[in-house]
């Protein structure tokens, strides 16, 4: 085989006289006589686009990042990629028809959303729920808190490189899913509440299943704790990253674990109690530095506290009816609706016209796993609300992202984004 030397005639030279790579700007082919500008390789910032399809943005979030080398100078989040028109849709639905919509906003903790909306609708209509319903709703909220924090833990571990806690956390979620399915028939889109009560009473095996869960769940938590909390890689990637002071957190209207990790001891369950939370014995978990590590510790400890509340709720669950005895609000049992004329008329009016709320408005904020979830309902006397506003904790927590991430590295941005615990269904609604 003979050797051949091939002369290549490049259209543009790769290197200039000083050996620096030549940057050829777009469009230079249009004006070939123009000299390209001198490349300035120092002090040039890069524009990087993360998302909206990206494994580490926790949903369809788009982050436009200005980078100086590896350091984030500015990050501009773009939302709206999951905007589904919930609030508009709510104006065309009866109050009980909105409950399935609430499942799909924060789909990681559906039962808590259901409870939040039902509380707002009941405040608007002036309905007082039964004691049994109150305890069942507390159980629903705390189960939702555990599954939401388990998703957070699993996905944050994956983002920071630890794959195994994801599998452990999701296995715990499966056990709660079994309980949710036992109660409501659905794993994820539970729609467990109705205005004035619940969709159904708990089945017979539910209490035993939940008790078994509360007894074995602390073991998984301690395993995760052992793997992560004093792990050099974990601590190195999360301590001192994305810190916010208490005053900044309050000014940015943060809520939930984001606010408490910065040292503000505000928990809606303790400070504006609902569902008799003041009678339960639990600690409000408050952090100190407001960085990603503190948020991790706050959420991990909140899972133990939720477990504690569940155990207390199981003990104090009273007997009695689950729904209020008002036939204008709660559908009568099927056997009565088929046989009794009055019950049939109540059934007809509720299904065809919906339950009418009096003129007025109500706001109820509950402690969602992500923060303070508020439902603001305005009524003009008809069966469909004039305005249904969801006060979205993830949306407001996310607005502090650019403040938290400035000056950190790109990999820290991933950790900070994970620590905000967003669910795009709620951010975009």
């Amino acid at each position, binding site marked *: 085989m003979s050797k051949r030397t091939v002369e290549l005639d490049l259209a543009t030279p790769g290197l200039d006289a000083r050996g620096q790579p030549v940057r050829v700007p777009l469009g230079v082919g249009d004006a070939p006589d123009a000299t390209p500008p001198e490349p300035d390789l120092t002090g040039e910032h890069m524009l990087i686009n993360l998302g909206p399809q990206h494994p580490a943005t926790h949903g369809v979030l788009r982050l436009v990042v200005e980078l100086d080398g590896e350091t984030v100078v500015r990050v*501009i989040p773009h939302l709206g990629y999951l905007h589904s028109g919930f609030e508009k849709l709510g104006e065309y639905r009866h109050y009980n028809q909105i409950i399935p919509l609430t499942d799909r906003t924060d789909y990681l903790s559906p039962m808590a959303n259901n409870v939040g909306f039902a509380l707002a609708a009941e405040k608007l209509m002036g309905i007082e729920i039964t004691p049994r319903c109150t305890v069942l709703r507390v159980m629903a909220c705390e189960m939702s808190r555990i599954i939401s924090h388990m998703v957070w833990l699993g996905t944050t571990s994956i983002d920071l490189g630890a794959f195994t806690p994801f599998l452990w956390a999701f296995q715990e979620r499966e056990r709660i899913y079994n309980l949710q399915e036992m109660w409501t028939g659905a794993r994820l889109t539970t729609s467990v509440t109705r205005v004035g009560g619940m969709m159904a009473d708990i089945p017979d095996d539910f209490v035993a299943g939940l008790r078994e869960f509360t007894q074995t769940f602390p073991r998984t938590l301690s395993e995760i704790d052992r793997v992560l909390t004093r792990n050099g890689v974990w601590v190195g990637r999360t301590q001192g990253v994305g810190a916010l002071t208490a005053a900044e957190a309050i000014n940015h209207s943060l809520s939930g674990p984001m606010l408490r990790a910065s040292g*503000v001891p505000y928990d809606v369950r303790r400070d*504006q109690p609902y569902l008799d939370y003041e009678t339960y014995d639990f600690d409000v978990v408050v952090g100190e530095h407001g960085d990603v590590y503190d948020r991790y510790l706050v959420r991990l400890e909140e899972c133990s506290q939720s477990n504690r509340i569940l155990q207390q709720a199981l003990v104090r669950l009273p007997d009695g009816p689950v729904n209020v005895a008002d036939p204008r609000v709660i559908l009568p049992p099927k056997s009565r609706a088929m046989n009794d004329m009055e019950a049939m008329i109540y059934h007809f009016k509720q299904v065809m016209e919906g339950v009418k709320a009096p003129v007025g408005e109500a706001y109820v904020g509950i402690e969602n796993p992500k923060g303070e979830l508020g439902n603001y309902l305005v009524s003009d006397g008809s069966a469909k609300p004039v305005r249904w506003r969801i006060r979205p904790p993830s*949306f407001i927590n996310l*607005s502090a992202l650019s403040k938290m991430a400035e000056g950190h590295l790109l990999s820290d941005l991933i950790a900070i984004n994970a620590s905000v615990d967003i669910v795009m269904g709620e951010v975009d609604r």
Partner: protein
Amino acid sequence: MNPTVDALRATFGNAIGRGLESCGDTIVYVAREALLDAMTWLRDTPEQGYDYLVDVTAVEYRDRERLLEVVYQLRSLARRADLRIKVELDPHGDLTVDSVVPLWRGADWLERETYDMFGVTFRGHPDLRRILMWETYAEGYPLRKDFPLRGRFSRAEQVRQALGANPEAHYSMEELSIAEAYDELPADMKERLRHGERGKLPDTE
């Protein structure tokens, strides 16, 4: 009724409209001109101390006679007190109100969303653009009552406009200035970006 209402009336007089209570929540109407002063007073006065902004939104009623209200939900963390402030605006007229972003940074995105969904302009907002819909969304303001549920255009037209989006045009001018990338773009792409993805110039030109 929250005692703040009387204190507000004592300080601001006629600028404070009616105060009422609904389902246990206190609501007070404030005139548009006095809003920023009243909010500053509410936040900074030690006895009031409403340091936490819970929510900013707007409500438009089905009754055509009623005015559009911009609703602010405030909270004093220390006193555990809530207050709802409302500003009434004419839905057919000028929907402008002062921005409270200088007081609470959390209002930033909340006001952008209210602008996006209702068309309420917030004077003094650092960056008032659409947040949930795309920036050159041509169908209007979705949560207004005259906006139909399924949108104004036909489904095929909505799909066509959605697919016609030039993904590069999703960068705002501010972002393109970061990498000095705007200057390097070819002329026809610059023109497309000026027009936005939907072929309509943004109103703030």
